[in-house]
């Protein structure tokens, strides 16, 4: 199936770590990041997304893990 990057298609150029509502969509039930193979995010956005998620985790806006 042909997937398209969520961020590119919505013209989101900067992924903010405070946007937890969006970031949560790219985490699995264990709070791990979803691979771009599954999410269809382009590599440039995936790098930004990974950094934003890590920042949000540090600021306790997102969990490191959920059981």
């Amino acid at each position, binding site marked *: 199936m042909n997937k*398209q990057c969520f961020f590119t298609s*919505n013209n989101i150029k900067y992924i903010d770590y405070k946007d937890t509502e969006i970031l949560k969509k790219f985490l699995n039930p264990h709070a791990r990041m979803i691979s771009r193979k599954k999410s269809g995010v382009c590599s440039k956005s995936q790098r930004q997304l990974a950094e934003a998620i890590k920042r949000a985790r540090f600021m306790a806006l997102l969990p490191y893990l959920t059981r």
Partner: protein
Amino acid sequence: MAEEIKDEAVESEARIYEVGYHIVPLVAEENVPKEAGDVKFLIEKQKGVMISEELPRLHPLAYTIAKTVAGKKHIFDKAYFGWIKFEADATALPAIKEAMEANENVLRFLLIKTVRENTLVSMQKIISQARMDKEGGEKKAPGVGATAEKDKKPVSVEELDKSIDELLK
């Protein structure tokens, strides 16, 4: 001429930064704006120029954070989270960082480089636009996805519908 070059060099050093911070919930709610004002003051002291900010609001933490306040260890599961976006010289940052570390009421903070534009994206806006795209077909509202390429439109709608379904779960 030489002055112009010098001015340009000074301008290029000023960058956009953002400091996000948690204030300990031991601070009474009426004193929180004062704490936010202190953070703002220390940035202005380093000749930082405010761009935008959000006042601290009580926010549940995703995990507990321990901090020793006045010789006593406290474990917090909520804190007042706020942020300030500002323009400052790169050389001013170590002083801002040190002052934030020294502030006992700051539970945790994050100082990052960012962009001047508003970076927060409203999920509601994305959802409403996806609905408009679905209902209106070719009619597209100006906004987040206004500049997306036309040939990629059907695929993006599919992707957005999926994301809405995920949100509604």
